[in-house]
């Protein structure tokens, strides 16, 4: 039986339809929406926490969503090794829920930024990047006001030593430069995974990069990796 993807819908999620479209219509994967009050994830093989402004994000991005009924089930799902991808607000929620280390600050320019960015894939050793060679540059857009990833030096060293940094902002040639680090993230971090490597949080939106017509299809590489992994598993 083919794998089932679940896209969580919080009040204020606004990339839920985009994630659904990418998975169901472009990747042709079995996909369903999960309401934030749902708690039964027994038929889900892969969880996707989409972008948006859960609960309006008036307090701190993701700070309220972590208390949603579904989040306890998400934590249990992840702790059992279930794959979870948090994109943008989804990444922020994973940080707030303690499933990934670190915190998000406002972008250094204190403004929302939406544009195409280049990411360097830093590790192929995750189920999300198994088809992407290290050093490969992906063009994937960002759209966030709070994407300035921060963690202290000890934690950063752990991320580096454990190969948990999955994506870094880079220029079009793959150079990790200060200029490419538009939001001020520590160590140009755009995406990280947990030590068990089944949870990925990333600020850029791969679901917005699945068709040439809308600017890039590099995001498909991530979803193809996931689908291949699940097909084998």
């Amino acid at each position, binding site marked *: 039986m083919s794998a089932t993807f679940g896209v969580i819908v919080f009040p204020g999620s*606004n990339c839920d*339809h*985009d994630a659904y479209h990418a998975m169901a219509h472009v990747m042709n994967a079995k996909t369903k929406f999960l309401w934030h009050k749902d708690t039964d994830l027994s038929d889900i093989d892969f969880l996707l926490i989409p972008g948006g402004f859960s609960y309006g994000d008036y307090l701190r991005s993701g700070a309220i969503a972590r208390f949603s009924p579904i989040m306890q089930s998400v934590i249990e799902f992840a702790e059992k090794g279930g794959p979870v991808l948090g994109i943008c607000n989804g990444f922020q929620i994973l940080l707030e829920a303690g499933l990934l280390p670190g915190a998000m600050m406002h972008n250094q320019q204190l403004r*929302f930024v*939406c544009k195409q960015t280049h990411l360097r894939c830093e590790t192929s050793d995750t189920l999300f990047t198994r088809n992407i060679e290290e050093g490969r540059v992906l063009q994937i857009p960002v*759209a966030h006001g709070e994407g300035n990833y921060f963690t202290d030096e000890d934690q950063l060293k752990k991320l580096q030593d454990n190969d948990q940094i999955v994506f870094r902002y880079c220029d079009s040639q793959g150079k990790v430069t200060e200029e490419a680090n538009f939001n001020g993230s520590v160590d140009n971090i755009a995406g990280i995974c947990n030590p068990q490597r089944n949870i990925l949080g990333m600020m850029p939106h791969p679901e917005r990069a699945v068709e040439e*017509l809308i600017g890039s299809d590099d995001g498909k590489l991530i979803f193809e990796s996931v689908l291949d992994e699940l097909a084998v598993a």
Partner: protein
Amino acid sequence: MKEPDVTLELAKDHGLTEEEFEMIKDYLGRTPNFTELGVYSVMWSEHCSYKNSILEIKKLPNEGPQMLVGAGEENAGLVDIGDGLGCVFKVESHNHPSAIEPYEGAATGVGGIHRDIFTMGARPVASLNSLRFGDMDMPRVRFLLDGVVRGIADYGNSFGVPMVGGEIYFDEKYEGNPLVNAMSVGIVKEDQTASAIAEGVGNPVIIVGSDTGRDGIHGATFASEEISEESEDKRPSVQVGDPFAEKLLLEATLEVIKNGGIVGIQDMGAAGISCSSSEMSAKGNAGMRLDLDKVPTREEGMSAYEILLSESQERMLVVAEEGREQEIIDIYEKWDLNAVVIGEVVKGENVTYHKDGEVKADIPADSLVLGGGAPQYKREATKPEYLDEVQSFDINSLDHPGNHNEIVKQLLGSPNIASKRWAFEQYDTMVRTNTVNGPGASDSGVVRIKGTKKGLAVKTDCNGRYVYLNPRKGGQIAVAEAARNVVCSGAKPMAITNCLNFGNPYKPEVYWTFKEALAGMGDACRMFNTPVTGGNVSFYNENPEMAIFPTPVIGMLGLVEDIENHRMTPEFKNESDVIYYVGALRKGLGGSEYLREIFDLTTGDAPDIDLEFEARLQSSLLDAIQNQYVNAAHDISDGGLATTLTEMAMFAGKGADVSVADLGENKHEILYSEAQSGVVVTSEAKKKGQLESHLNNQDVPFVELGTVTNERSLNVDDLVSLSIDEMYDIYDNVIERAMKQKDDVVA
């Protein structure tokens, strides 16, 4: 609290005239009480009643085979785009609120226009904004720009609709009275539209969404007077937005409409409950009884007057089928929104508002509304004296500078021409994953329609300078340019919405200009078969010194039949592609950015336009695009041919070698004239013959200018030789650099 006695003086304080006060007494057969006076004053304000504009607006064409619902029948017109889908779109102003509270003013403008769209059952798929500010050198202007852009961004980004286009213009004429026009575009299945109607005696009336507070009381009245020294005191008239609540309202409302069980639904914007209840009742020839005690309020002790006039955002009024109200309430509650039955549809034709066991207001619904009893005026119109003076100005008498490299660079550095990247990178331009062409390097914003082969191309446009110099031609050009822009993106122009920003209509010169500009728009809409689907009028755009440029902003909807194969973009594509100028002679410098930048002059006559030729040019160009004879197309507008060529080069990072020798003798006119009906296209060398014979067959003149190169420089004869990097550095950064002078940004 005892309510004040209603006198003529009090009516005048509410913005009503003596004549209007008498009309009210006639309708009621008695003197209105305080609450009723408040309701009439907002409903008969310019903003709600269109009393000084409706007679002119009715002259605009509003019919066509593409129209499913005409202008004025609902909140916005509905255009047939095939595949069982309709498109609803509308542009609306939030100028006055933004002038004194730019962040909330702009934010609630965005919220309001989206509500107009989803109240009809349509999901908003794209938004645009058309902004005008004073001179960017002024700290106050930068403060307003910053606040407006943040307001639009924070609201729209959270709400989750991509911003795909728009404009920002700067001119001292807009000092103190910026224009903030927001447009929303939605798509609905033809059989899932909702109507703003109340009918069926006994059907319950439900208020949904946010609680009602004291914000925005008399917002509509405030929008209907000139901005003055006292305007700062009107700050409490500005509403406060909550995009999260609106997002919930959107999702819940679309679910409710799909579920069925509703008779009608109307969003609450200007004049709040008064407006939605009376308009729905008038439309259904029904009465309505509302119990204001049941309205969820944000604070204790609100009077009937305050509840009725509150413009608290993110609210809707729903008339349910009797017995199905609980289904509707359940859906709203699923989305954590209030939904409370506050009354019912009743026999008769009056809306009655009850509170504390008393009837607080009892008014014939029809007497309140546009198209019913609201006053309609024909105002005195006098041709302004300045027109003869500017139109007879001899531009040849000026001493035109000879260094074209410097002129081109100066134009690229004009904030009117320079990239608006600083602003649009703050907007989410891609959410919903439909954006094919976003803001920036495109003549219009293009979104694909999932599940079909089609796309929508949308554009806002108006050059207020042209309208100022020649209102009739200016009105024609606003429509023509917007149409040309969507054609350059590969779309057929379908219909327009408009936002008519003018000064005080009681000034005969303003009114004459208004009439002329509308007549011009009507000329063009008839020629292009683009009916007007609706819109908004914003009068009283004046600061203590002067009126703004008359600015009828056009929102154009275009349909791309085959998004994969017909979409078109302006950047040069490949080395050796042939570059053509297509269209009318490049003549006249009146109203140009060149005159403004080099001589600090806004004078001359507006550029000439021959509408019949323009229509032929556009249809020929669209054919050429659809037949894939061209691989780049870009409109010539502000800054003239020189700006068009530099943009095509900069967007591509490719250069060109060009000669304009065959275009005529006057190089300044050729390079900088904003003459209408001109585009630059490129063609692969092997398709050259096909393109040329197509244009010849259509009797559209063209001149071959040169070829695209892989060199990073643009060369025009011995006139211009500039590196792309140098040009781009100016073009891309002018506004950002200006906005970084943050320390002097003041309230």
